[in-house]
C-alpha cells in the first residue's frame, strides 16, 4: 500500500510544480492583457495621436527627399517604410519600468509583489510581453491606414517576417532587462519622473525611432550601437524593410542574444544589490 501511494508522490511534484507555475503565470499574463484592452477610448486616442505623428513625419521626409534620389544610400520609399514602422513601434521604447518601480515603492505595493510565490522579474516580464502583443494587435489598423494613405510596403517573404519577429522579441527582452536595471535606481532616488524623461530623450535619439541609424555620422552610430535602445527599434525594423539584408539575420540574432545574456545577468545582480536599500514606507 505504502509503495503505491509513495510512488506517485515522488514522481508528481515536478510536474505539479511546472503545472502550477504555468497556471499561475498564465493567469498573471491574461490579467495584463485584459486590462490593456479594456480602455477602448484610450486605444483609439493613441491611434489618433500616432496617426498625426506619422503624417507629420511622412510629409517632412518627402520634403527632405525633394529632388534627391537617395540619402545615405536609402531611397525615399525605403526611408518612408522605415519611418512609418519606427514611429509605430516607438511607444515600445517609451514604457519604462522605473515609473512602475517608483509607484510600487511609494505605495508599498513592492512588498506585496515580493511576497508572491512567483519570481518577481518573470512576473513583470510576462506583463510586459503581453503588453507587447496587445499593442502589436492595436497597431494593425494604424499600419492599414499607413498602407492606404502613405503607400507603406511590407515584404511578402515569410522568412523576413520570421527574422523580424524573433529580433523584435529579443529586442523587447533586452529593453526589459535594461529597463529593469535602470529602474533599480528608483530604490536609491525614490524620485522617478526626471530619470524617466531622461531615458525617453536618450531612447528617442539612439533607438533609431526618428531617423534610420545609417544616416547618422559614424561616431554617433557607434554611440547608438553601444546603447541597447536600437535593439528593439532599428535592428528589427531594418530587417523588415530590407536595410539589413536577410542573409545577415544569424549575425543580428547572435548579437542580440549576447546583449540579452549580458543584461539579464546584470539586471538580476543589480536588483539583488539594490533591493537591500529598499525601505517600504507603509502604503
Amino acid at each position, binding site marked *: 500500500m505504502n509503495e503505491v501511494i509513495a510512488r506517485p508522490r515522488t514522481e508528481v511534484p515536478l510536474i505539479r510544480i511546472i503545472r502550477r507555475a504555468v497556471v499561475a503565470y498564465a493567469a498573471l499574463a491574461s490579467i495584463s492583457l485584459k486590462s490593456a484592452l479594456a480602455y477602448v477610448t484610450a486605444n483609439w486616442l493613441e491611434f489618433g495621436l500616432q496617426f498625426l505623428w506619422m503624417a507629420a513625419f511622412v510629409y517632412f521626409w518627402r520634403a527632405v527627399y525633394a529632388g534627391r534620389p537617395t540619402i*545615405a544610400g536609402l531611397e525615399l520609399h525605403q526611408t518612408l517604410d522605415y519611418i512609418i514602422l519606427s514611429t509605430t513601434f516607438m511607444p515600445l521604447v517609451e514604457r519604462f519600468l522605473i515609473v512602475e518601480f517608483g509607484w510600487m515603492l511609494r505605495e508599498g505595493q513592492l512588498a506585496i509583489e515580493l511576497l508572491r510565490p512567483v519570481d518577481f522579474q518573470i512576473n513583470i516580464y510576462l506583463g510586459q510581453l503581453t503588453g507587447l502583443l496587445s499593442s502589436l494587435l492595436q497597431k494593425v489598423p494604424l499600419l492599414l491606414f499607413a498602407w492606404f494613405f502613405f503607400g507603406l510596403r511590407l515584404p511578402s517573404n515569410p522568412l523576413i517576417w520570421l527574422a523580424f519577429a524573433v529580433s523584435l522579441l529579443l529586442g523587447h527582452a533586452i529593453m526589459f532587462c535594461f529597463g529593469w536595471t535602470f529602474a533599480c535606481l528608483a530604490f536609491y532616488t525614490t*524620485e522617478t519622473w526626471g530619470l524617466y524623461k531622461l531615458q525617453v530623450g536618450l531612447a528617442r535619439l539612439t533607438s533609431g525611432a526618428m531617423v534610420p541609424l545609417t544616416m547618422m555620422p559614424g561616431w554617433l552610430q557607434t554611440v547608438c550601437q553601444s546603447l541597447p535602445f536600437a535593439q528593439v527599434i532599428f535592428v528589427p525594423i531594418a530587417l523588415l524593410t530590407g536595410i539589413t539584408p536577410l542573409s545577415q539575420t544569424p549575425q543580428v540574432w547572435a548579437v542580440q542574444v549576447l546583449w540579452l545574456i549580458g543584461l539579464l545577468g546584470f539586471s538580476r545582480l543589480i536588483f539583488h544589490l539594490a533591493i537591500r536599500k529598499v525601505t517600504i514606507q507603509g502604503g
Partner: protein
Amino acid sequence: MWRYLKLFYWFTLLHLKTSLEYRADFFLGVFSLFCIEGSAVTVVWVIMRQISNLNGWNFNEVLLIQGLVFMAFALSAIFTNNLWSIGNGYIRTGGFDRLLLRPIDPLFHLVVDRFEKNNIGNLLAGAVLVGISSSALGIAWTPFKLFYLGLSVLTGATIFTGTYLITAVTAFWIINSHPLTFVVFKNVEFVKYPIDIYPSVIRSMLTWVIPYAFVSFYPASYILGRDSGLMAWMGVVVAAVLLFIGRRLWFIGLRRYASTGS
C-alpha cells in the same frame, strides 16, 4: 485686474518656493526636459546635414522655428498646464467645488493651482535654440525685433492656452477632457517644421482651425525677412479670438456643472 495680478504673483512665488524645497528633483526635471529637446534637435541636425535645405529653409532657419515652438509651448505649460487636468483632477473627484467656494474667479484659480516647473527646461532649450540659430543667421536684434520676438512668444503661448481651454471646457460634458486636449495639442508636431512642406489642406488647418502655425511659421518668416504680409501680425488676433471663445464656452459649461453628488 490689479488684484488678480497680485494674486498671480503670490501663487507663482509660492509654487517656486515649494519647487526649490526639493532642489535636486527640480534641477533633474529641468535638465531632463532640456535633454529631450536636445535629442530632438540632434535628429534634425542628423537629417539636415545630408541636405542643404528643406524646401528652401536651411538648418538654422528650421532651428529658429523649433526654438519658437519650444519657448511658446513651455511658457503656456509652466503657467496654464492645469487646464489639462480639469476633468480627472477636479470635476471627476469633486475637487472643482473647492474652486467654486473661493472668492476669486474659478478659471483663474484652476490655472494658478499648478506651476509646471519642469518646463523651465523647455523654455531654456527654446531660448538657446533661438539664440544659436539667430547668431548663425546673422540676425540683428534691433529693439523692434526683440519686441516682436517677445510678442510672438507670448502670442504663441496664448494660442496654446486657448486650445487647452476650449478643449478643457468639454470636461463639463464628457468629464475626461484630457484625451481631446492631447489630440489637439499633438498637432504641434507639424509646426516644428516650415509648414510650406505640407499639402494645402494641412496648411489651412494649421492656420485657421488649430492655428499653431502662428506659433512658429509666421513669426519665423517675419524675423527672417521673408514676405509673410499681414500674417506676421495676425497671431495676436487669433490668440485673442481663441481666448474669447474659450471664455464664453467656459461660462456655458460652468452653468451646466452639477458636482459629483458624492
